[in-house]
């Protein structure tokens, strides 16, 4: 579905189903240089199990127009405006990597609006290496190559995908390559400059789920410990052998963690 946010055409994947205000809503927020399609399995499941699933394309990503925003604060403000535009009074948020920080900040800014927050492959704070910042600033393809190498576990480097015939490294590379120049740098800048994560964690009032990859080199599990301890109510699931690309490396495990999370909350999938 398309909507307008701050005058810009904005896309959210809904599994081709109309928004129904009577249903609970779960919003999926992608990471740097990605788009809604990283959530295709998980968002489609929820869309067919009694939920409004809204897998957004952030500004300047995928099918959404506008320039990429360069701070998590601005992105959280944008997400709030997106929810207004669609007419979502209350929702669950699931974010991956940069998207997890957007979800965190959104939940901190407007606690009554967020029923539950799932942070997939997160770190608080989320510093980005100088080399990645430098290469992404130069729109150097090496930045994508480094991400592909670091974002997949040693096991995933050789494939064995659950999706028939899909080569994870190739898919992720092509998805990143579709980004316009400057997109990856804007995203990394937003992650690197976000210093308010732990303060935001104190303000979050909803249950929080952290799903982390045991072999994640980009957001290693230890980098989420302090935030997990700061939330008033949180649970951490560590997926054995998984790297940072959790939704493609272990799609069912991520989905099952999300299903268990929402079942433990007030809303129950049909």
């Amino acid at each position: 579905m398309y909507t307008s946010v701050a005058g810009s055409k904005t896309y959210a994947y809904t599994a081709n189903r109309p928004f129904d205000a009577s249903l609970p809503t779960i919003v999926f927020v992608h990471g740097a240089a990605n788009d809604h399609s990283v959530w295709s399995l998980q968002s489609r499941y929820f869309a067919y199990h009694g939920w409004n699933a809204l897998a957004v394309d952030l500004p300047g990503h995928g099918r959404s127009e506008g320039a990429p925003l360069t701070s998590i604060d601005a992105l959280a403000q944008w997400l709030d405006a997106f929810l207004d535009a669609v007419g979502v009074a209350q929702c669950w948020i699931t974010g991956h990597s940069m998207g997890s920080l957007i979800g965190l900040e959104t939940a901190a800014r407007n606690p009554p609006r967020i029923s539950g927050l799932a942070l997939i492959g997160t770190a608080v704070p989320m510093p980005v290496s100088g080399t990645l910042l430098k290469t992404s600033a130069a729109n150097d393809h090496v930045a994508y190559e480094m991400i592909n190498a670091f974002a997949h576990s040693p096991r995933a480097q050789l494939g064995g995908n659950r999706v028939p015939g899909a080569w994870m490294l190739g898919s992720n590379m092509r998805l990143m390559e579709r980004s316009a120049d400057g997109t990856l740098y804007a995203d990394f800048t937003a992650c690197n400059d976000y210093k308010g994560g732990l303060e935001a964690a104190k303000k979050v009032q909803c249950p929080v789920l952290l799903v982390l990859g045991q072999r994640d080199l980009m957001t290693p599990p230890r980098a989420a410990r302090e935030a997990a301890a700061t939330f008033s109510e949180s649970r951490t699931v560590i997926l054995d052998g998984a790297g940072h690309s959790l939704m493609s490396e272990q799609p069912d495990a991520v989905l099952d963690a999300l299903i268990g999370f929402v079942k433990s909350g007030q809303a129950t999938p049909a």
Partner: protein
Amino acid sequence: MATPKSYRLDTLGLHAGQQPDSEFGARAQPIYYTTSYVFPDTDHAASLFNMERAGHVYSRISNPTNSALEERIAALEGGVGAIATASGQAALHLAITTLMNAGSHIVASGSLYGGSHNLLSYTLPRFGIETTFVNPRDVDAFRAAIRPETRLVFGETLGNPGLDVLDIPRIAALAHDAGLPVLVDSTFTPPHLMRPFELGADLIFHSATKFLGGHGVAIGGLVVDGGSFDWDKSGKFPTLTEPYEGFHGMVFTEESTTAAFLLRARREGLRDFGACMSPMNAFQIMQGVETLGPRMQRHIENTRKVVQFLDASDAVSHVVYPELPSHPDHDLAAKLLPNGCGAVFTFELKGGRAAGRRFIESLKIFSHLANVGDAKSLVIHPATTTHYRMDAEALRNAGISEGTVRLSIGLEAADDLIEDLSRALHASQKA
């Protein structure tokens, strides 16, 4: 910080797409010889059918052994994924029918495998899909042949049997300017010789029966998606960009930004046309792929020695191999195929049809049959076999004469091959 690199081709050829079996630790790829898969519960079943979970439902659509092969070839080609099919012809058919409907048009190289030529010339027109054939060396002819209803530009990386080198970068540029994808048949150029996606191709197919398998025991095909073509931007592919009532109104480009083509091909093409690969064949082809790199090296080494020998023979008027300075695509081959121009080539025997018959019947190591890319050396006479449907003009356009002999050089000792050829050439010239 050193630039990280993905694994190299020889490593991917052995490992990509396969993890040691989680149940028993089997190192080799297990053969999942099953039609179907038990669902843990009804919700899981529904989720698999509706693409909410990853996994297998029925082996016509997907199978774990096939999936491992598909992933391996996608990794070797640098694509986003692949689909294994019953044959190379099935792969070509799957690609075409996924992209277009009756009323569509293809621009294709005129130098094609006879089977592909048959499909495009005679069979697809019955279903309303027309093809214009052009000289593969005339890049402008590709541009001139494009019509409003054109949906695909197609050629072989090395034309069969004239070994015309397809100028993929230039052809891709003009096709992309017209909003069209380029499909190449890369059967003669496995990834160790050429990676067409890096040159601009959008889709690749292989007859896996040939070099990928290498053993001549299993028929199969693979179609690989490079994941770069922007179907939405093109606006010419409603099968991928508009809701498909045959699968819950799915819009494939929304479902998958990079693999929309593969989604539709699997969810419609394999489902409805059903030309899937047998898991036994997938296993056998995987065994071949494991040694593809070293085999291609040996194929090329042997081919270069045989080409050199034939080029110097008094019984041979002409050898057609792009590494020879006499080949019209010599310079282009040096640029696009620095690791070798394949192991299949033709030569013109002096003495015409009668000499050709004596030559073929005098060979002891070379097998006379209709295949290429085997570990064993092969020989055939195209005018009476693979290209028998073509008239004289079509044969000429494809670079074939009645004296053309095609060789597929195998992995035997090169000296034995040369001695066999030497004996047969001598016999061929006896009146």
